[in-house]
């Protein structure tokens, strides 16, 4: 197996040394240097540089011993054949990633300037978030956590709504009630998240069970982090989903850390995907910095779900390039070197050079995309900053379908305090 890590080269560049681009669009290099293997009903896509460089992620950096690998079925081929997106789609995925990156960087800036209170950046995870969300249909339901810019934007949230929420203004879907970075939208089937880890997973199972019972051919997807796999509701939800074979995709964004805790302190399992075995469901590990691989794997899992094939656990291996949140200082617990190494695997560069290799993308396309993204962000912020905060009365609303007597009284009290406003 090639050890690319030690050379610390660009991943696509490295891959290009094995198989020429352009002819075999997806998993080209995968079949060359990695293995995809079925153990029990776990698919594991190994190799792919990620694993060789992810020292510190796991106690045992190798997911499976080779003896096991040799019994596995290579599934790369049929994934590629059935799910590779059309050239226009690939470009759209890339363009969305550019937009998400721009929106993300601007949000951090706004937070640093005190113009928004808090933000959870997603830099480094654009391939995981955009690639997977792009595979969803509008009628599918998404359950996210706080690290979701790529998901909500891909799903169609306007940047105005995106920033309205971050600024907690009166156009915020949550009416300024949720902490920033908890985007929700009924119109987009994104259920407004809470902050406790993985509590959204049973909901995704419940909606999926409901759809299954009604005979609706939809799927649900639940996003969470590597740390989330330790939570109670990871267990409760995956177990329930396994028993009832619900059309649910559990998408684990394994970005290496839960705040300061590396995955090796989170679990002793050989991977996160392998945890699917405990629930009798399919597990698959994918290179989370490869947008097209993420897209394909997610799309396949969604289709399987819609067609009655039950749930899938996807472990998408990626890296959080920024801080945990705007309140965090990763220098306290991470080596600079680690970040530098992952920078060479930036998901945007990765997909761009892949597109370039396929002759689908040039310098002008790039300039256009970047400019367009900046423009979008600028307009949205200009708009959102003009919107006033929610009315204080909203403090007392939406607790129940109808306000109870104590809420009525408290609203009255508040109004008096604010001078009857």
């Amino acid at each position, binding site marked *: 197996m090639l050890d690319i890590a030690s050379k610390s080269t660009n991943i696509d560049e490295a891959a290009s040394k094995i198989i020429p681009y352009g002819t075999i669009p997806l998993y080209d290099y995968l079949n060359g240097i990695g293995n995809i293997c079925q153990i029990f009903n776990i698919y594991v896509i190994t190799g792919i540089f990620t694993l060789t460089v992810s020292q510190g992620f796991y106690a045992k950096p190798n997911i499976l011993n080779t003896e096991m690998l040799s019994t596995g079925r290579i599934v790369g081929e049929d994934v590629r054949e059935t799910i590779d997106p059309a050239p226009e789609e690939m470009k759209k995925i890339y363009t969305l990633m550019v937009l998400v990156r721009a929106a993300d960087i601007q949000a951090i800036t706004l937070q640093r300037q005190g113009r928004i209170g808090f933000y959870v950046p997603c830099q480094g995870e654009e391939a995981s978030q955009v690639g997977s969300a792009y595979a969803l249909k509008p009628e599918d339901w998404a359950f996210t956590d706080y690290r979701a810019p790529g998901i909500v934007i891909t799903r169609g949230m306007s940047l105005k709504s995106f920033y309205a929420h971050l600024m907690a203004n009166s156009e915020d879907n949550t009416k300024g009630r949720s902490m920033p970075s908890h985007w929700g939208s009924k119109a987009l089937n994104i259920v407004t998240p809470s902050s406790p880890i993985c509590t959204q997973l049973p909901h995704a199972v419940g909606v999926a069970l409901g759809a299954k019972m009604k005979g609706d051919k939809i799927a649900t997807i639940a996003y969470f982090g590597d740390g989330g796999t330790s939570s109670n509701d990871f267990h409760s939800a995956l177990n329930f989903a396994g028993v009832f074979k619900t059309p649910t995709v559990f998408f684990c964004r394994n970005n290496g850390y839960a705040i300061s805790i590396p995955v090796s302190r989170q679990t002793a399992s050989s991977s996160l995907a392998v945890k699917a075995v405990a629930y009798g469901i399919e597990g698959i590990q994918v290179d989370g910095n490869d947008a097209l691989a993420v897209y394909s794997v997610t799309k396949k899992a969604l289709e399987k779900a819609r067609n009655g094939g039950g749930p899938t656990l996807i472990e998408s291996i990626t890296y959080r390039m920024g801080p945990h949140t705007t309140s965090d200082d990763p220098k306290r617990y991470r080596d600079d070197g680690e970040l530098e190494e992952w920078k060479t695997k930036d998901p945007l560069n990765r997909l761009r050079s892949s597109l370039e290799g396929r002759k689908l993308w040039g310098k002008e396309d790039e300039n256009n995309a970047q400019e367009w993204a900046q423009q979008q962000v600028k307009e949205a912020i200009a708009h959102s900053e003009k919107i006033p905060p929610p009315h204080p009365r909203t403090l007392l609303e939406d*607790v129940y379908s109808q306000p109870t007597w104590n809420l009525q009284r408290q609203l009255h009290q508040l109004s008096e305090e604010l001078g009857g406003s």
Partner: protein
Amino acid sequence: MPSLTLVQAINTALREEMQRDEHVLVLGEDIGKNGGVFRATEGLYNEFGGNRVIDTPLNESSIVGVSIGLSLYGFKPIAEIQFLDFIYPAFDQIASELSKLRYRSGGEYKAPIVIRSPYGGGAKGGPYHSQSLETFFTHIPGLKVIIPSNPYDAKGLLKAAVREDDPIVFLEPKRLYRSTKSEVPDEDYIVPIGKARVAREGKDVSVFAYGAVIPTVLEASEKAQQEGISTEIVDLRTLVPLDLEAVLASVKKTGRAVIVYEAPKFMGYGAEIAALIAEEALEYLEAPIARVGGFDTPYPYAHENLYMPTPTRILNAIKKVAKY
């Protein structure tokens, strides 16, 4: 009019609501073939099948969490927690999710499910099959909390709960499940949420109580009557939203208040009743308020009859307050 036990009234309410609306589901542990360990779901599996009467894995968090999801998709799940003592694994789902979803989503999402669970002592259940945990749920904004004390109210309140557009914690006093029968109309009726019931009119002392202790309170009240003290018993029925008007009306009439509950006294629900009276009707009080609660201990196995508010303890409180 058929004569039913409280658990039969619950069973009837579930059946009728499931017949009325095909979106109504029940789910929980051992509620299918087994009909629930207290037989509250008896017969439902045969009538409605495994898609509407769903035996779940042994995990309360997913019982509530999946119910929330089902509700988001348009179903009306009624989740059974086998004993209220086992609701703790679902606490995160209840406190973080169920109660806050409507608010945090700006009103875009809601999950008006019903969680029903047997609670309270008197069944020789020891520390973990006897607890009265209503305090917790009454302090979580976004939840409504209902506790019936007799078969008629049980049916009418449960039917009201199923039709309510808010999440509801519905607690059933297990020691009253089969203790008596009473007449329960065959027809569809509801008992409105948020309305207390004057279980006995009186003029000297108001006794506020709910659920499992109501028969004991009635017994104590009977004895007080024999000693010439007339008590007015207010069965609160809905703990959230509390029927504050009924509480204040009674205390303004009698000028004396005793509050009875089975949970540990300290920070039991009666504290809120006492506080509200002290805030809103202090000038009417002719005596200190008295609370009779369980001891501030875990629930015991042996001597549970001494743990639960006894008729004597209630009577003593009534007398103390009356004679002040």
